[in-house]
């Protein structure tokens, strides 16, 4: 995997964002990310064999389906090549990566473009919540919360509070928020890059208000509403050579997994993300490694509680110990396991269909030393990284293990 690119994550928090003013649309983001990748292989767009574009709800946010048709718009050299949109809610970007990996493994392509895009700020949040609710089972929409997914994860947080303690948990969630914003401040494309709040944990401890939002989470516990695109190439070794990419500028895909949980069934235990746990275990097994060999993780913190539950799903902390693990700084950029080093979904942003690809780009940047101010030190004894991209409430999960090339 090589030649990644993230556009800005556009939305509230960015100084150039104004809800009442015209903004770039899908075409802009697809074009910017795609052209940047092609520029990274010396404008040789003809070398790209196939493209997958992850997107969740352009059909409703932008009244635009059929996104595969936008791939040739990027570069005339892509005309006539296979291109298709893939969808798995917020894991759509992960599915684009998985599809690209399959294509390379199947030998149908040596150079495959994986892209993700979402433009969500076309709707007010209260209507956007309807659109995003489609990531859950529609039969549950009627009984669900106005802010459907915050409601789902509020229920998870409530269950976690009840079992392990409210104040204890909220401290962990507040630290997760602090880490996210501090990391985002190091990444110019992050939505929270300009965040100037001094006492982030105090802000994050704002009491949830169920009368206007959800019972157990506040807005700081939630990821952003974002517009943006990310793109990266998945290549065979032959593809790397064709494109003239040095191995040290690429990362190896050491293992991966893709799992789905029954969308019509409630989670057996709200304090456990079972599909994520399974996906991580499968990906690690596929790579033949353990978490002890992983230097950094990009995980799907659509909500702070998802971050804490993700830590437990990875086995970094025992059940109920995730909040303490986070609160103690273990997941901070200088902790034992730096997680979401450019802010994750809460700090960098969450253009839903792009998020999985954004995670891969971030990992690629970290493992190849291209992360700029956000760069962390990769221990040579731990050359692996992991990304976890989740769709819905722990329903579709794509986990990928990457290895630094020496």
């Amino acid at each position, binding site marked *: 995997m090589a030649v990644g690119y993230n556009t800005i994550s556009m939305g509230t928090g960015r100084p150039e964002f104004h809800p009442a003013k015209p903004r770039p649309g899908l075409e802009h983001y697809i074009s910017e990310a795609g052209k940047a990748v092609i520029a990274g292989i010396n404008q040789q767009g003809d070398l790209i064999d196939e493209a997958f574009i992850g997107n969740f709800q352009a059909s409703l946010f932008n009244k635009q389906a059929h996104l595969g048709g936008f791939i040739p718009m990027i570069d005339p050299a892509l005309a006539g090549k296979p291109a298709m949109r893939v969808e798995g809610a917020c894991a759509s970007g992960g599915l684009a990566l998985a599809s690209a990996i399959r294509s390379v493994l199947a030998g149908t392509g040596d150079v495959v473009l994986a892209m993700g895009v979402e433009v969500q700020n076309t709707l*007010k949040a*209260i*209507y956007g*919540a*309807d659109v995003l*609710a489609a990531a859950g089972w529609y039969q549950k*929409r*009627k009984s669900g*919360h*106005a*802010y459907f997914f915050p409601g789902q994860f509020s229920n998870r947080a409530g269950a976690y509070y009840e079992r392990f303690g409210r104040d204890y948990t909220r401290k962990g969630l507040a630290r997760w928020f602090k880490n996210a914003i501090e990391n985002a401040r190091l990444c110019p494309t992050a939505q929270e890059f300009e965040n100037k709040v001094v006492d982030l944990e105090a802000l994050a401890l704002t009491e949830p208000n*169920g*009368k*206007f*939002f959800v019972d157990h989470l506040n807005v700081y516990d939630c990821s952003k509403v974002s517009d943006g695109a990310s793109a990266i190439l998945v290549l065979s070794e032959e593809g790397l050579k064709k494109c003239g990419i040095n191995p040290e500028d690429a990362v190896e895909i050491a293992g991966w997994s893709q799992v789905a949980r029954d969308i019509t069934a409630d989670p057996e235990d709200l304090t456990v993300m079972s599909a994520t746990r399974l996906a991580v275990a499968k990906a690690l097994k596929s790579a033949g490694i353990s978490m002890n060999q992983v230097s950094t993780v990009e995980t799907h913190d659509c909500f702070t509680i998802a971050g804490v539950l993700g830590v437990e799903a990875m086995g970094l902390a025992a059940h109920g110990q995730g909040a303490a693990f986070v609160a103690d700084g273990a997941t901070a950029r200088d902790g034992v396991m730096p997680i979401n080093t450019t802010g994750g979904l809460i700090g960098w942003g969450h253009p839903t269909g792009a998020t999985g690809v954004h995670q891969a780009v971030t990992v690629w940047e970290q493992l190849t030393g291209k992360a700029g101010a956000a760069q962390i030190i990769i221990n040579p004894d731990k050359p692996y990284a992991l990304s976890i991209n989740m769709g819905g409430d722990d329903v579709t999960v794509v986990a990928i293990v990457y290895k630094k090339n020496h």
Partner: protein
Amino acid sequence: METNIRLTNVAVLGAAGKMGSGIMLLTTMQLLDMKLSNQGESFSPVIQAIDPNLDTLRGLRKYLETQVLKAAEKKCVWLREVYKSEASLVDNSDFINRYVSDALSIVNFTQRLESAYDSYLVFEAASENPDLKVKLFTQIDQNSQREPWFFTNTSSIPIGYLDERSNLSGRLVGFHFYNPPAIQKLLELIPAKNTLPELATFAEQWAKALKKTVVISNDIAGFIGNGHFMRDLLYAISQMTKASRDFSIPASILMMDKISREYLVRPMGIFQLMDYVGIDVCQYILSVMDKFIPGKNLHSDFIDSLITMGVKGGQFPDGSQKDGIFKYAKGKIIAIWDPEAKQYANADEVIPVVDAWLGKMPEGIQPWQNVMKMANREDYLKKHFEILRNCSETGAVMALEYNSYSGKVGQALVDDGVAASTKDVNVVLTTGFFHSYGPVHSF
């Protein structure tokens, strides 16, 4: 009669006007929310939105639709709860649209005053004309079998006077919203001496249901808000007149406006406020106060002359400021009316004169916007007045004189029995006029 029965048929007179439309919005949503909250009981309110102008009535419908939609978007969590038994409502947009539709369905938009004959409650927001108000009350009351309770939005006319002339026998209360009613928190409640106690109690409860900050004023023309504002304005005009012996009238106007805005930390200067309210409205309020409070010379030849010259101020239907004593561009003062030249004088030419006369603005003085955000506003204001006291420049001296006069007006409102306390006076000025402090203070 059960109060809920009174709420089943409500009329708003002047419904499509500036104040009426805000009252319509608040009343419509409150009645609908009551209906939705009490689904076990049979409560089907209707609101007669009465206005003689068909075009503005159409505008009212559009205004309600837009504003109710915005409100519904903010309370969708609650809407999903109260409409949960409606199987066809699934997405937020379904609930929101249903609420807007339900809100509009309880309003009867009409030009016919006869529609109020079956109302139990009548909210009057017609223009500030006692004869018109009396005519409306009398006609409705004479044709109604329901002994309606009347609420008037008058900001100056004594309630007892209107009650007596309309033969309402205590079925009238002053219910003075501030502009815009949907936003402004303050409501002056003015029971007349003979207002029925049960009406006064109901009015206070209703104001609180609308989430208003209620201040009770005695029934003396101008009440608390205009009682202070008009005297404050007359003081500014008298100081302006004095200054105009040495300076041009535009410079003198701008001087007093700057002192009241910047030195006294108010959201707008005194003459800009006059434009905001409408110079013709100010003239009318003064005439009412002068009539009912004789011997106090509550009158201004200067204001009369402005009206004669067609300089009226006021607002456009979208809320933007019309030109008055000042000319505005994007809300900013760009010129000042010169009554002698009968044309506007460019502000850029007047400002240097004003600044030179007032002297250097003392260091450390903060603008109103900053002060309103301060957690320790009281501490700042103590420091602010200390700075003014330690400054010998003309601007600071005049500001302290103005402040002192304003405080005396506030105290006089209590001494004259208009307000129950200086606290009430201060609440009106800080809540209704957004002053950063009340006029009666010890800073």
